């Protein structure tokens, strides 16, 4: 994706900047980088260290106040083009990272994170509180975060694992995978892609997963209390465990209640299939894996599956 920029960067990144500034607790880091990379890692010091690889024509500016540390670049001849930042911050520091042709990575954060790019990936490990990750043309990947989590892409996939809290994930043309999730409020929606949710279903929780052209695979732990509504237009439903259907309007729209039904789980796929399994089963689900492989190969959904209710 960034091949051209990377090639140019290799030729142009001729200078290193290395600056360390002290910060107070509660200060926020803001970085805007038009093209290149923003890589943030953490340490135990109350200071921010900024190292940057950039053109000799560019100047890196680190503007530190009590509340905010702002990092940006300036060029003597127009705007800076490509800068690779490696920034080390206190773990709890809030991060606001943005760019255009920019890959963003964060490792080990225990603070709030906002990361937005247009043509680049966002990959984050950590994050507490509001965690908002967005890209237009890049994968969005998150692990080990907790709080209010908002993940968005347009043309690529979203993957999250070992996360907890309120979760929202949305893309247009890509798959969404949420695994090892602990949440009482989760939503994932795409237009052209599959959705996988492997996590908790908590009493009183709300869960909604939808796609237009793709399949849904959702785990329902044993002893869950959940009312499941299933809606498709041209897809089928199946489960890895026995389920009792009620209010069967057509084979494409019905509800089923597990336990007391206190949680609400909405599953909607216009053109794809919907499958319920137990946590951890989805990855081992041979029938579905074979189907997914076919789907990946052909990008053409097999819609002849009959509703099956297999024994666990």
């Amino acid at each position, binding site marked *: 994706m960034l091949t051209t920029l990377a090639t140019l960067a290799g030729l142009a990144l001729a200078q290193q900047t290395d600056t360390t500034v002290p910060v107070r607790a509660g200060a926020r880091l803001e970085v805007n980088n038009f093209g290149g990379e923003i890589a943030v890692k953490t340490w135990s010091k109350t200071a921010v260290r900024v190292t940057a690889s950039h053109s000799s024509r560019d100047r890196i500016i680190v503007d530190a106040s009590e509340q905010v540390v702002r990092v940006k670049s300036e060029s003597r001849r127009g705007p800076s083009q490509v800068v690779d930042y490696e920034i080390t911050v206190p773990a709890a520091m809030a991060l606001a990272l943005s760019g255009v042709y920019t890959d963003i990575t964060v490792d080990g954060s225990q603070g709030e994170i906002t990361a937005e790019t247009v043509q680049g990936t966002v990959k984050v490990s950590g994050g507490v509180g509001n965690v908002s990750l967005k890209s237009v043309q890049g994968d969005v990947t998150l692990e080990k975060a907790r709080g209010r989590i908002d993940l968005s892409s347009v*043309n690529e996939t979203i993957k999250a694992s070992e996360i907890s809290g309120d979760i929202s994930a949305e893309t247009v043309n890509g798959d969404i995978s949420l695994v090892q999730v602990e949440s009482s409020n989760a939503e994932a929606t795409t*237009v052209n892609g599959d959705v996988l949710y492997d996590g908790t279903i908590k009493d009183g929780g709300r869960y909604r997963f939808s796609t*237009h052209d793709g399949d849904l695979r959702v785990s329902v732990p044993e002893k869950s209390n959940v009312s499941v*509504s299933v*809606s498709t237009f041209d897809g089928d439903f199946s489960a890895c465990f026995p389920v009792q259907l009620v209010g069967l*309007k057509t084979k494409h*729209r019905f509800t089923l209640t597990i336990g007391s039904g206190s949680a609400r789980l909405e599953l*909607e796929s216009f053109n794809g299939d919907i499958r319920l399994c137990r946590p951890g089963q989805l990855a081992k689900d041979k029938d579905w894996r074979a189907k997914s492989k076919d789907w990946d190969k052909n990008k053409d959904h097999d819609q002849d599956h009959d509703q099956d209710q297999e024994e666990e």
Partner: protein
Amino acid sequence: MSDRWTDRLSEYLDDELGAADVAALEAHLPSCADCQATLEQLRRVVARAEALDDRPPTTDLWPAIARHVGVVSLDARRARRRLSFTVPQLAAAAVALTLLSAGSAWLLLRRPAGAPPSQSTTTPSPILTNVGTYEANPRYAAAVADLERVLAQGRSRLDTATVRVIEKNLGIIDRAIRDAQSALAADPANSYLNLHLAQEMRRKLELLRQAAALAGART
């Protein structure tokens, strides 16, 4: 799929049926899968409408919406939720909320520096139509056209790869909208299809708004 009770399920949910009708309907429900399913769908629509309250728009648009739908106040609505509309009307209302929110956001984006924020983008007009025909609604069409025009104007500022991706994804959403509209033509009362169409229309506005914002930035 309709029987004599289908059109009265919303009254039932609102506790507006007389005691005799309630008893008759509750006696009828166990033997009528259609009514059970429709009732469940209505409950889902209400639940989803309730969820909209969790993310209020930047500008308080509710008073104008309330005038349209004849509700006195948000507090009053919360105190006793009324379900006096058909499923397609509720889905259309969901789109209207998004449209108003998107329109407001766009106006705020366009607002010259120093100018006061706009209070409301609403003008009195019927908004509760079947969502299946909503794309033809002048206000939705105008909002889409506005954003498309801004996008066209800023196109030269966008990277060609970004333009291609945006156009490709708008095409994907348009295809989903057409699919939903075709399906709705055959089953206009299908609440899932109404909500699905509303969702895709909202998504189109959101992507256009995002693209227009990008076109206004340095990309």
